[in-house]
């Protein structure tokens, strides 16, 4: 290593050799080696993340099975996740029902099927928009809050304190939140569906002037039991994904305020992507099941 307190002109042969080694540009091989190392690092970190997440989820299921959750913790989680989310989920559902009516009315009217708008709106709501929007709202309102809360607990050593007192933090902190999300998201989805259906119906009947009787008649014909089941079934997976991602992010939160903020953001983004991914996969699977059952839905 050259002595940096000396001028270059004062360097001996050995120091100049060191300096040349230090200052030369990396060769192509060294550049390639560096890129490969970087790609390897990224890949390894992703594999570690997936492994860690899987192990975390396994722990959640383990603690859910071996020890009963305390009723007060469960009630608190249900209140936070279910009751407090209800207004925003209902409001979102109602607006999306109305927006669907606004967007689809012109097209349906142009082909003379404005009365069938109810079927389109309600089918979209029950199968896709209701569960997905309820899940997105839950990821935003509850998921971020869980990640930030648990992240703060991690940073301030409260999770360590729980562990040190012989209380498993996954059992105490994660399981009630997981159960809250898992069991209450179907109810939230149903509420979003109902509000969306009524919002769409109100706009169609009272603003666009569609006849109430044919509107509901079409809705009744086109929305079947399997459609309602599809939405609720999917919502269970969304709820589980939101809770696991949010809790995992909180538990693995980096130190400081930035770490907590990052945990909340990553929790929402990852949940959102996962909701859409699960929606696609389950959509394909459930459609196949639907076809096997001989149900071929159609609006027109």
């Amino acid at each position, binding site marked *: 290593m050259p002595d940096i307190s000396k001028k270059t002109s004062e360097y001996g042969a050995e120091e100049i050799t060191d300096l040349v080694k230090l200052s030369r540009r990396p060769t192509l091989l060294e550049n390639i080696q560096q890129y490969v190392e970087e790609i390897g690092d990224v890949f390894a970190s992703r594999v570690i993340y997936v492994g860690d997440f899987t192990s975390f989820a396994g722990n959640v299921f383990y603690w859910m099975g071996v020890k009963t959750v305390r009723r007060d913790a469960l009630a608190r989680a249900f209140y936070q996740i279910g009751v407090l989310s209800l207004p925003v989920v209902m409001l979102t559902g109602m607006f999306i029902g109305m927006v669907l009516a606004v967007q689809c009315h012109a097209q349906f009217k142009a082909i003379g099927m404005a009365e069938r708008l109810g079927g389109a709106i309600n089918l979209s709501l029950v199968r896709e928009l209701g569960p997905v929007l309820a899940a997105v709202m839950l990821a935003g309102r509850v998921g971020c809050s869980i990640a930030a809360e648990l992240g703060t607990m991690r940073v301030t050593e409260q999770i360590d304190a729980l562990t040190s007192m012989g*209380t498993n933090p996954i059992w105490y902190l994660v399981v009630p939140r997981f159960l809250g999300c898992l069991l209450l998201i179907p109810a939230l989805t149903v509420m979003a569906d109902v509000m969306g259906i009524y919002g769409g119906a109100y706009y169609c009947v009272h603003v666009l002037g569609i006849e109430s009787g044919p509107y509901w008649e079409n809705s009744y014909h086109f929305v079947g039991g399997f459609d309602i089941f599809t939405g609720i079934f999917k919502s269970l997976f969304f709820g589980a994904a939101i809770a696991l991602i949010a809790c995992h992010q909180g538990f693995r939160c980096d130190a400081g305020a930035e770490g907590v903020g990052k945990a909340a953001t990553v929790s929402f983004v990852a949940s959102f992507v996962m909701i859409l991914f699960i929606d696609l996969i389950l959509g394909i699977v459930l459609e196949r099941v639907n076809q096997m059952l001989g149900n071929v839905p159609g609006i027109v």
Partner: protein
Amino acid sequence: MSDHPDETPTLSKRRRIIVNDVYPAEEGEYPAEARPLERAVVEDGPPFLQVESLSVVFQRNPVLRAIRLTINRGETVAIIGESGCGKTVFLKSLIGLIEPEYRQGNVLFDGNDFYGMTTRQQTRERMRFGFVFQQAALFDSMSIGENISFPLEQHTMKTDEEMEAIVLRLLAEVGLPPSVHAKRPGELSGGMRKRAGFARALAMGPEVMLYDEPTTGLDPIMSDVINELIINTKKQHEVTGIMVTHDMKSAKKVADRIIMFYPLSRLEPEEPQIIFDGTPEEIDRCRDPRVSQFIRGEARERLMEMTEAYKPQYPE
């Protein structure tokens, strides 16, 4: 003394060291206050804590390397060392509070390997410990009373009245008024929060108290209050204490034995990480310049080293 097994004093030698240093044999009967220490030195069987070649890599940095040490029941041991030497990682590793990327070695409590236990066994084992965290780590969502009664509520069948009585007794023991019972941690000063954390750690009647920098961030008077609390806790509850600190005054006042860790970044690969293991009296006589630099709090060449390290690498 070092962490090498051959150089670690045997139980009988350790017994002699402790007894001679604190209660000279020629004085005859041990005073009443000596009971915890007396108990520590006369017990047979495996030592309370054995750490066997513990190495930890945390966030890609080796933090602990082949740590070997033994702690007897009833001892209060202060682990000192500069920031980043792995004191807190060591303390938390003892009861598995951190999940490092890599860990090797064993931690044995009463001869039982902690890392070899199942998750549920570890959870049960941790109830023997009381942990006082650096920033108290009280639960924000609970009152001070709820914080202190939390372990009782989780692990005992005590009634609300019984828990209330224990909480009030513990509050008094750490010098907090009953009025803090209903307050939230955010409403208390740092010293009060730390004492509330202390009370919570005592709630289950632990056998061992682990203190993570208990006097950090406190004024000198409050620091000494915490020192007194640690001494009183040892006397009243007959607990073994392991304290991590860089407060030399606190370490000398509280500890029967001081162990000094040194950062791995400043050590050669073959050098042991524990550079001192002895009594508070011995540390003052220690001739190792690294130890004397720490206990005197001298920067010496450190600033120059650091500024040199961050200078631009290439000369003009």
